[in-house]
């Protein structure tokens, strides 16, 4: 069964907290990884690898540049 957007966001939030210390309360679709959540490029690599494992998706490197906000990432993972 496919995960809901809320479930994906929650899973992403766990990853962000684990690898980058982001407060789960700050995670929302409109938040930018770099500007709002202070996730720099190296931390983003960790987030992507952890998300691939957790959600069983492939996120190619040239796609990562398009994932500017939490909402972008949720949508990408939702599409699978």
């Amino acid at each position, binding site marked *: 069964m496919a995960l809901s957007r809320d479930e994906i966001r929650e899973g992403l939030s766990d990853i962000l907290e684990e*690898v*980058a*210390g982001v407060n789960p309360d700050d995670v929302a679709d409109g938040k930018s990884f770099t500007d709002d959540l202070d996730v720099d490029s*190296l*931390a983003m*690599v*960790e987030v992507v*690898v952890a998300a691939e494992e957790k959600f069983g998706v492939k996120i190619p490197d040239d796609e990562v540049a398009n994932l500017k906000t939490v909402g972008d990432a949720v949508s990408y993972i939702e599409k699978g």
Partner: protein
Amino acid sequence: MTGLGATTPLGGDVASTWEALVAGRSGVHLLEQEWARELPCRIAAELAVEPSEVLPRVRLRRLDRSEQIALVAAQQAWDDAGLNDDLEKERLGVVFGSGIGGALTLLAQDDILEESGPRKVSPFTVPMLMPNGPAAVVGLEFHAKAGVHAPTSACATSAEAISWAADMIRVGRADVVIAGGAEAVIGGLPMAGFSSMKAMSTRNDDPAHASRPWDRDRDGFVMGEGAGALVLERRDHAEARGAKIYAVVAGSGLTSDGYDIVQPDPECNGGGRAMAAAIKQAGIDPKEIGHVNAHATSTPVGDMAEVKGIKREVGDHVVLTATKSMTGHLLGGAGAVESIAAILAIVEGVIPPTINLENPDPALDLDVAANEARKVELNAALNTAFGFGGHNAALLFTKA
């Protein structure tokens, strides 16, 4: 010298480390970990306080253990010196070394590479394993902009760092320099490597008595992990802000043996020249030096060669001690932690003991603060450090 910081096998800060040193406590234990089971040497001096008790979790996962403890020690030294953000950052330097660097990170990430492929290798691998990592992390933390340098000279590393830091101030490149070193390589491969060289003690059944510099029954060094940091500051800069001054780096000497990659020169010629250079720079009579915190690692050859050098260059009046009898050998962290011990010996008028000196080597013909701390009024103390590769450092500290 206006600030001191350390995290060692004896304590998580300078005060607890000093208290244990004076009390003569050993920080050496049997390693219970699975990876240690097959090693010829299964003893080591692990940190008394884990960095995870001090630093935030996300910070920890992006730093090698050597960088974590460099940061812990440097923060203490910074706070102890009473420094804050008012300091002009273009006049702040860092000289901080590590003998081996992030070897445990390298090994752990290599395991990940083998087991899970390149994509799983941490993006922090390179900044964690590079030998300038501890210097870079400390420099970044305090926004140092006068230069961040990372000497690597094995076990002489952090003594060399203090020497370079003093030079930075002497030539006018900085007003304040955070100097020191960190080492954290208690792990299978580094210990197996040192063991294959027959450099480590195998007294596994009696860990607390394994590190025994100058004792007849010494059989090699015991590895320790730890970091030491010192804030060096131009005297008028320190005086202008009313900082307390622990001691003065009156002179330093750096030489090289040109003799062997790992064997110490049995006559301590290079080490002796480093001592002589420090004394010459300080411009004092060697008779004023009451104490030498010796490199003395508990290896059969090195310990006695150094005694020859000290006797020849400093004289036969000095009282020696070997901090490594309690901390084990902190490798790249040794020079800094032992300099702190030498400085506190001057400040407190107490020389910490050399423990386990039960049957002195017959060739030991200098006075050692054996097994009990010695109360002595000191005006000057010398610290020595020698490293694989034939690196020699001597630092001469005098009363503030």
